[in-house]
């Protein structure tokens, strides 16, 4: 009797559990990707940061995009052609592309989006690149037919497409005019991307859903922000998890499917875990040791050369990236097609030569302060090693740890002697050089102030011929190694961890998680 009662009870319980579980099974299980901070807005290229770009670029696409090798590829455009005088870019749009509201993409949408971006009220962060304050000015956008848009420039600009495709510019994403309210203020992104916005709960998550009518730009594999971009999951959720340890715990538990920026120190543990996978990509960010060449002490080139000779950059890179990254002493990133054998030439680690150079420089043990921060653990770790290596050759180096906002302020004012500083990725070598080169009188943050080198850089922004540009970058690199305006250490590394039931996810050179061509087996 007791056994029967127990069996009956067990059956009832099982039934109840099944009944409770069935609706749950019918629910969509989302692909969950962690973000270390909430996004700032859903408005492409306006109020943004890296996390914002990563989320928004799942919904919005531009005419052109960066591929995995940092070259420019058509995205909404079928083809791009440049007029002989270098002043007109003609974009032929792909057929069959639709916005999330079902409307077809036409050249009129391109022109409308451009007018909106270039309206100062939009507060597009890249406006100054195109309104004449930068290299060139877009004088007009013409729409000869529904599938053609022509951008007319006032002067040739080799970086025009590269700037359009910049992720911080929101890829100059083409959006439908219903993305803004009647008063012109931002509402929500109605783009052409593989996912559409469902809900943004501030501080918690951003929920996107699959765009069923997505027009895939290419078959095959994803290629940066181009290539095949099919949405393979019904729901995508970017979950805000500010604490690294909590993000890792959530991944191990299965509450998160992908952590795009796992700490390097955790890589060994992730590799050893059979339920987790790992994908590593070296990005195009520059990890550097900046030197203030206007400092009375460090204006002496021999002292700067001594610093370079005292640093074993290969060892520093291996140590701070847990062996994941290769050192690079060139401003041209390792992944760039312009990084040829010439750019593999770097500083020779030679402590004895460093001591000789110090003697020649007349160095008498004056204090040299290295500024650093703990917001970027690799930057801090490299600073500690740099201090030790400098002290080993007799340089009186001390470390000063600043909060990131304070360090950025000191950087912008040029108020430092030596500073460990990470630059975010620029995807064209001219832009990488441009971030560090320029007149310190006009912009105190500039690091390398040499008019001759500057003239070379400016030329690289005008010419489109690859061979000619290569020659310019090679010459700039030779000058860079000789003058040592700063020390280039390595390009950043991105380690992404994911659950083994996630298929198709790879870390990207663009340092942002991509959810297209990714599926989850449940």
């Amino acid at each position, binding site marked *: 009797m007791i056994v029967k009662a127990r069996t009956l009870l067990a059956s009832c319980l099982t039934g109840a559990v099944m009944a409770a579980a069935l609706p749950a099974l019918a629910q969509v299980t989302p692909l969950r990707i962690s973000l270390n901070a909430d996004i700032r807005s859903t408005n492409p290229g306006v109020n943004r940061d890296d996390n914002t770009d990563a989320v928004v670029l799942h919904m919005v696409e531009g005419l052109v995009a960066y591929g995995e090798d940092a070259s420019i590829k058509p995205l909404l455009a079928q083809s791009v052609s440049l007029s002989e005088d270098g002043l007109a870019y003609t974009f032929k749009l792909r057929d069959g592309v639709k916005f999330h509201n079902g409307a077809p993409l036409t050249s009129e949408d391109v022109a409308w989006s451009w007018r909106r971006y270039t309206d100062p009220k939009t507060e597009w962060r890249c406006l100054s690149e195109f309104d004449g304050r930068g290299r060139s000015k877009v004088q007009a956008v013409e729409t000869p037919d529904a599938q053609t848009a022509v951008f007319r420039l006032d002067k040739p600009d080799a970086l025009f497409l590269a700037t359009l495709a910049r992720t911080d510019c929101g890829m100059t994403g083409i959006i439908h005019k219903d993305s803004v309210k009647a008063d012109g203020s931002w509402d929500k992104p109605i783009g052409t991307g593989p996912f559409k916005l469902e809900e943004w709960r501030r501080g918690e998550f951003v929920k996107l859903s699959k765009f069923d009518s997505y027009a895939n730009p290419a078959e095959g594999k994803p290629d940066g922000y181009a290539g095949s971009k099919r949405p393979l999951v019904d729901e995508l959720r970017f979950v805000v998890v500010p604490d690294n340890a*909590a993000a890792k715990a959530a991944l191990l*538990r299965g509450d998160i499917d992908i952590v795009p920026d796992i700490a390097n120190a955790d890589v060994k543990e992730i590799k050893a875990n059979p339920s987790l996978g790992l994908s590593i990509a070296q990005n195009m960010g520059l990890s550097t040791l900046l030197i203030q060449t206007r400092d009375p002490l460090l204006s002496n080139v021999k002292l700067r050369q001594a610093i370079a000779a005292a640093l074993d950059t290969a060892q520093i890179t291996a140590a701070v990236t847990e062996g994941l990254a290769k050192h690079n002493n060139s401003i041209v990133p390792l992944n760039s097609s312009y990084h040829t054998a010439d750019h593999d030439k770097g500083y020779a680690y030679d402590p004895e030569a460093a001591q000789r150079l110090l003697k020649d420089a007349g160095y008498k043990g004056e204090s040299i302060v290295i500024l650093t921060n703990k917001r970027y653990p690799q930057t801090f770790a490299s600073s500690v090693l740099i201090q030790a290596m400098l002290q080993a050759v007799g340089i009186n180096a001390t470390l000063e740890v600043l*909060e990131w906002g304070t360090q950025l302020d000191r950087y912008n004012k040029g108020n430092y002697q030596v500073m460990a500083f990470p630059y975010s990725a620029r995807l064209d070598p001219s832009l990488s050089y441009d971030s560090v080169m320029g007149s310190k009188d006009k912009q105190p943050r500039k690091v390398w102030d040499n008019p001759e080198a500057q003239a070379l850089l400016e030329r690289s922004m005008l010419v489109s011929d690859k061979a000619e540009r290569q020659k310019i970058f090679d010459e700039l690199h030779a000058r860079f190694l000789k003058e040592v305006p700063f020390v280039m250490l390595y390009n950043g590394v991105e380690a992404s961890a994911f659950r083994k039931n996630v298929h198709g996810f790879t870390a990207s050179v663009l340092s942002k998680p991509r959810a297209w061509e990714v599926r989850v087996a449940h």
Partner: protein
Amino acid sequence: MLRFITKRILMAVPTLFIMAVSVFALIRFIPGDPAALMLGDMADPASLSDLRERLGLNHSLPIQFAIWFGNIFQGDLGHSITSSQPVLPLILDRFWISAKIVLIAVLFAALVAVPAGMIAAWRQNSMLDLLLVGTATILLSIPTFWLGLLLLIFFGLKLEWLPIVGYVSFSDDPTAALLYIVMPVATLFLHEMGVLIRMSRASTLEVLRLDYITHARAKGLSEGVVLMRHAFKNAFGPTWTLIGLVLGNLLGGIAVVETVFTIPGLGRLLVDSIFARDYPVIQGCLLFIAFVYVAVNIVVDLLYPVFDPRVTAE
């Protein structure tokens, strides 16, 4: 009573004014430019100048203060630099999330700690006393972030009883909401319980040594009656004050706990805003926290006579 309340509220006005001035000035002493932080290392001078203009950072500091302070009187704390949201609704949204966790944790901590402290005092120097005081000392010595991580690893990761990241509001799903706040509440509960046990024990010990307790015992009253009727009311006063301070302090933000458990509360908002130099949000948060602190302490003072008849609101 009314006079007392009016007096306390009037006393709060200069406190809040001084707070407003100090907050405005101090946050600007910290080096760092919100516009530069927003644009990062890719900022070109033209974009930087545009953004500074839009954010009103090109005005002189007195003008910035006058605009901000003038708007406060109209209930407008400005707009967030980073998210463009109005500051007051943003703060209130986040405050309710923090307040739920803090109020539940402090309520439970007080319910456990006050009797535990009294029992420890009653059995002073016994094994029970040592155990309670030892536990309290350990609990208040453990940093909350570490305690939180331990709970997270044990109950979330090893036992898989509780969810690790995220937050669900009670209006969406009460059961899930409860599961999500168990660990943050437990972290705060354990920590604050340690603080309150020590205070409850110390104030009870003081009362138990007084003549009227000896007199009550001499009358032949049971220990239970002595403790509950004669010792508790007088001994609870200092603990009640401490509960007020703890509440005021915690309601101002539990940034560390909120970060570990990914709770979008007021503390996390404040910390994120400081990193982003989001001046309007920092100023609004700190002013709001000062207001909460003052309000909680006024309420505590008003309720004090309920527990200790010797004290009157007059």
